[in-house]
Every structure is written in C-alpha cells, then in structure tokens.
C-alpha cells in the first residue's frame, strides 16, 4: 500500500515538473496584443489560441500544426496556405506581413479600384479569384477553390454569409478589425493574420515600426497648441461625423488636434445637424472631408453652399482623403497619423507633403 502511495506521489511530482518545464519553455517569438480590443492571442507550445470578439461574445479558435489539442474551440490547421478574404482591409494586413501569396480568393466584385499592385496583378493572372461581392459572394466558386480558410467580417448586412458558410461547412474565421477604434489597434490585427500564417516575426517587425512612428509623431506635437479639427462628410444637408471614441477621434488625439465632435459618445459615425456643424465647426482651423470624390472647394460648396461659413473653408485649409486611403492608408497607419499631425501642425513639419490627405484647390 505504502509503496504504491509513494509511487503515485513520485509520478505526480514528475508529471508536475514536466508540466512546469513545458510551460516555462519560451517561444522564439511571443506576440502580445497591446492595443486591439477585439482579439486575443495566446501562444502554447504546439498550438495557439486565438479569440475574436464578435458582437458581445468571444469566439475561440485553436490554431494547431499537427495534432489538434484536446481543448474547446474551433480547430484551424495552420499555417493556412489557401485563404479567401472578404475585404481590402484584410489585404492591407496580409500585405504588411508579405503574405498576399496565400490569398486564393477575394470577395471583390470589381466594384472598386485596387491599390495593391501585386494583388491586382495576381487577379489579372488568375492566381487570385474574384469571388463576388462581400454581401453576396459566389459560394460555388469559393467551394471550388478548396480554401483552408475564409476570413470574414460580420455586419448586420451580411450575416447570411456566415450562415451560408456554416451550411456549406467551409471553414472560416471572423475578423473584427474594422471595429477597432485605435489606429494602432487596427494595425495590430496583422498579428491575427500572422498567427494564421506563421509569420509572427514579420508581424512583430511591422507592428513595432508602426507603433514607434506613431508614438514619435505624438511626442513631437504633444507640446504644441491643439488646433480645431473638423472631420466630416455632408450628404444632402445631413452631416456625418465620426463619434468621440472612433478611429478618427483617436487619430486626432495622436496628432494632438482638437476634434470638434469629441463629446459625441460611441464609435462609428453619427448624423449631426448642419447647424451643429456650423456652430461647433465654424471656427475649425483644419477640415478633412472624408471622401475622395470632392476635388475642389467649389465641389464642396456645390454639396452645400452653407459650408462657406466655416473658417477652414474660408482659409482654404480643407483636405480630402486620398483615393487609396481606405487601402494603403491601413497598411501605412503611421504615415496617416503623421499626415494628420502635419496638416494640423504645419510648423512642426516644414516642407512635408502629406501622402494620404490632399488639399482642396
């Protein structure tokens, strides 16, 4: 009896030690999520746990190399080599870690210009298949591509895509990068793709660079006075502005600009009245019109003649976003932040030409 007990104790000790030594063994690259709020990564010896926030709940994915570990979660065998993606923002993140060659399908539908030249070329050459629009993709083509994984985002408008993928048993993961309200949080989603494609090192390098550049810019302008910034689009008298906790508001914070609708709660955008725009934005120093369809101040006044009352419009200090803002702008987040800092603090960046903001004539 007694010897049996000793045996058990010894075995348990050995097991415990083994367990400890396993846990303590450091991985070569440990990525941690610092800014992003909608995903988490956990690195284990031969598997990774990826958690993505979708609505109010967290979805757990178990990323494994050889053998699926016995833990709860949706298993995904990595590295994924054949990915179908839903959005050009996914392209930006894959581009950042040089992984666009693993894309086999893209829900594009030829409805907008692509500014990633390598991807454009790959589509022309047939290496990447255009599998239709994100709201109504061509499931047969997706099936035919035999993807390892489909990366989707879920909005109230496209929930049926998720249902359809479930029904067709096509493996997919949810990407909630578009919900991040910190530019660095959004940039950090490269780590999501890195975990899937085993490219942690590139991701870390990319992210460290972006983070350093953004924080350097923030430091550079932090002592200056913060000018008033207006950021909006106007559409038939209805004014759309980013809310106070949005991506844009956070970007303004890095650039030390005083965003005039900072106090509107929430993320995403809000419709405000034209009178509020004129009242609060009337003395704005810089205005960004967040569309690239407006080319000149005259264009702007054709949308609503009453914008002429805004100080920034009178002084010709109005910028629009560049055509590639929504694509390359997400790849070069640091440049976008620097641009915004430069247009709001021109004295700090003499001779600097913004890349992603264009001054209206």
């Amino acid at each position, binding site marked *: 009896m007694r010897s049996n007990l000793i045996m058990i104790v010894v075995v348990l000790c050995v097991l415990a030690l083994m367990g400890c030594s396993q846990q303590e063994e450091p991985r070569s690259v440990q990525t941690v999520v610092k800014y992003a709020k909608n995903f988490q990564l956990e690195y284990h010896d031969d598997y990774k746990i990826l958690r993505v926030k979708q609505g109010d709940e967290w979805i757990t994915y178990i990323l494994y190399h050889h053998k699926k570990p016995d833990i709860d979660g949706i298993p995904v065998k990595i590295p994924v080599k054949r990915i179908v993606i839903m959005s050009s923002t996914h392209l930006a993140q894959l581009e950042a870690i040089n992984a666009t060659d693993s894309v086999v399908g893209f829900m594009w539908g030829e409805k907008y210009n692509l500014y990633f030249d390598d991807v454009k070329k790959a589509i022309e050459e047939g290496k990447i298949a255009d599998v239709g*629009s994100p709201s109504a993709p061509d499931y047969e083509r997706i099936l035919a591509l035999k993807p390892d994984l489909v990366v989707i985002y879920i909005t109230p408008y496209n929930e049926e895509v998720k249902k359809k993928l479930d029904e067709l048993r096509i493996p997919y993961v949810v990407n909630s990068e578009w919900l991040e309200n910190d530019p660095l949080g959004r940039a950090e989603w490269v780590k999501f793709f890195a975990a899937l494609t085993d490219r942690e090192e590139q991701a870390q390098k990319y992210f460290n660079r972006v983070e350093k550049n953004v924080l350097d810019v923030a430091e550079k302008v932090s002592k200056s006075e913060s000018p008033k910034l207006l950021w909006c689009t106007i*559409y038939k*008298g*209805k004014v759309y502005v980013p809310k106070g906790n949005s991506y844009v508001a956070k970007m303004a914070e890095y650039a030390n600009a005083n965003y005039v609708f900072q106090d509107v709660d929430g993320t995403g955008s809000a419709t405000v009245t034209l009178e509020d725009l004129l009242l609060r934005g009337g003395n704005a120093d810089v205005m960004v019109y967040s569309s690239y369809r407006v080319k000149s101040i005259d264009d702007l006044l054709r949308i609503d003649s009453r914008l002429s009352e805004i100080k920034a419009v009178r002084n010709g200090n109005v910028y629009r976003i560049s055509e590639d803002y929504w694509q390359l702008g997400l790849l070069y987040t640091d440049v976008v932040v620097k641009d915004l800092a430069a247009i709001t603090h021109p004295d700090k960046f003499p001779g600097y030409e913004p890349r992603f903001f264009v001054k209206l004539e």
Partner: protein
Amino acid sequence: MKIFIILIILFFLSLFVVSTGIMVGSVDATVGDLLESLSGKDNIKGYIILNVRAPRTFGAYLGGSALALSGLMLQTYFRNPLAGPYVLGISSAASLGVALYVLAGVGWDYYGLVGSAMAGSVVAILMVLLLASRVKSAVTLLIAGLMLGYVFGAIERILITFAESRQVHEFVMWTFGSFSGITWEDLEILTITVLLSAILSIILAKPLNAMLLGEEYARSMGVNIRVVRIAVVTLSSFLAALITAFAGIVAFIGLAVPHIARMLFRTSDHRILIPAVAVCGALITVTCDIVARTIASPVELPISVVTSLFGAPIVVFLILKRKKVG
C-alpha cells in the same frame, strides 16, 4: 362655421410651430442675433438661424402639406384608405434614380441628387400615365402602380448588391429623408410648385367628391373620368416626386394625415379636406422635424422615424375615439 374656426385655429397653430421651429435648436439664438445677421453682420448664430434653420422649417412646412395632399387625392381616387403618395412607385423610382447616380459613382452633388431623384420619378410618372390612359378601372391602375414599384425596387436592389459598402451606406442614408438640405433657392421652387399644385387640387375638389361614390357614379354626374384620372395621378405623383427629390422618403405623412384630417373635421368634402389636409400635414411635419433635430442633439434622427413613431399612435387614438362616439 365651426369647421372654419378649427381650420383657422390650425393655421395659426402651424404658424406658431414654424416660429418655434425657427427659434428652437442646438444654437440658443436671440432675435438680436437674427437681426444682426439680417443687417449683414458676421454672426454665425444668426447665419445658422437664417440660412440653416429657417429654410428647413419652411421646407418641412411645404413638404408636409404636399405629401398630405398627394395622399388625400390618391386615397380618394383609389377609394383605398391604405393608398399614399408612394403607392404608384414614385419613391421606388426616385430612389432608383438616386441609386443609379450614387452607386454608379457619378457623384453626390446636392443638385445631382435632387435631379436624379426627380428624373427617376418623372420616368415613373410617365409610365403610370401611359397605364392610366389605357386601363379602365382605378383598381387596375393601382395594381399596375404597385407592380411598377416592385420592379424599380428590384433593380435598385441589384445595384445595391453589386455596390461598394460605403456607397451603399450613403445611399441608405438618402432613403431616410430629411429637410436639412433645403436652401432658400430650393424654397423658391418648392413654394411656387406646391402653391400651384394646391390651387389645381382645389379645382379637383368637386370631381373628387363625386369619385367618393365610385367611378360609375361620377361618370353619371358628368365627370370626365379620364381627365380626372390623369389630373389626379399627375398632380399627386408630381407632389410626391418633388418632395422626395428635395427631402428623400418621408414616411407616414401622406398616408396618415388625410385620416387625421377626416376624423378631425368629420367630413369627406374635399373643399374642406384639401386645405385641412395641407395645414395638418404642414403642422405635423414641422413638429416632427423639430423633434428629429433636437431630441438627441447634436445627433439628428431621420424624420421618418419621428413621423412614424409619434404619428401612428395619434391615428390609432383617433380611430379608437371615433369608435366610442359612433
């Protein structure tokens, strides 16, 4: 006599609401600010009242009466209490016009939007008129109009399916409707056209009264059915098209205000109903516009949300009340 008193009271009430609309908003402005701005001084508060708030309030006034008038005429002509300004496919056609303009990436100029909505509506009006001159009965025309709406809606959905999400968002926001974009120049057009249409509709009051008893009866009374049909369809569709072009789709007003007016005035005589509906429509729409822009300030609610949310209970209340009396 009593009816005239109610009408006059309502009219003054509507004027009161308009002045409230001009004075109430995000900006606490005084008459002094307004006078300063009128005298040409640079005063942003006065500018806002004069060039942002006043035109939208007057726009809501005219828009509300136009939609209500349009609804009344169509309800009477089709003898269908569920008919409204959009029953002949005007709203679908207008939004198809806008969809083609916005989703195809042509632009989003203010007058481009107004023009494309108007162009879409005119196409629909012409198609409805072509039908109206051929079909025999009002019911056939109603069904044909509904079908037309479905076809336009389907084409619009095809465009949405293949459009970029950002553009879809812009487009969806258009369909919500708002009087916010209206300027003084627009008001000139709106005032002239709405007033002219109102006068024309008064001419139609007698034939519309006869129509209440059915087309056959009206014919026996010596009413030229075809002329009345064309006139009603053209006038009501034109009013709906005009307001939709400038303000987007405004729900509820055209459908419900005629019912409210009928219950308030306890009559179906169009000589009374036409001015009554115009005043009630204006009163309700201006009130809803004030609520839409102040209740969650600085965030603005779509006007259709307010018209439906506040208006529908009023109609239910009036129906229940009438039941008790009767």
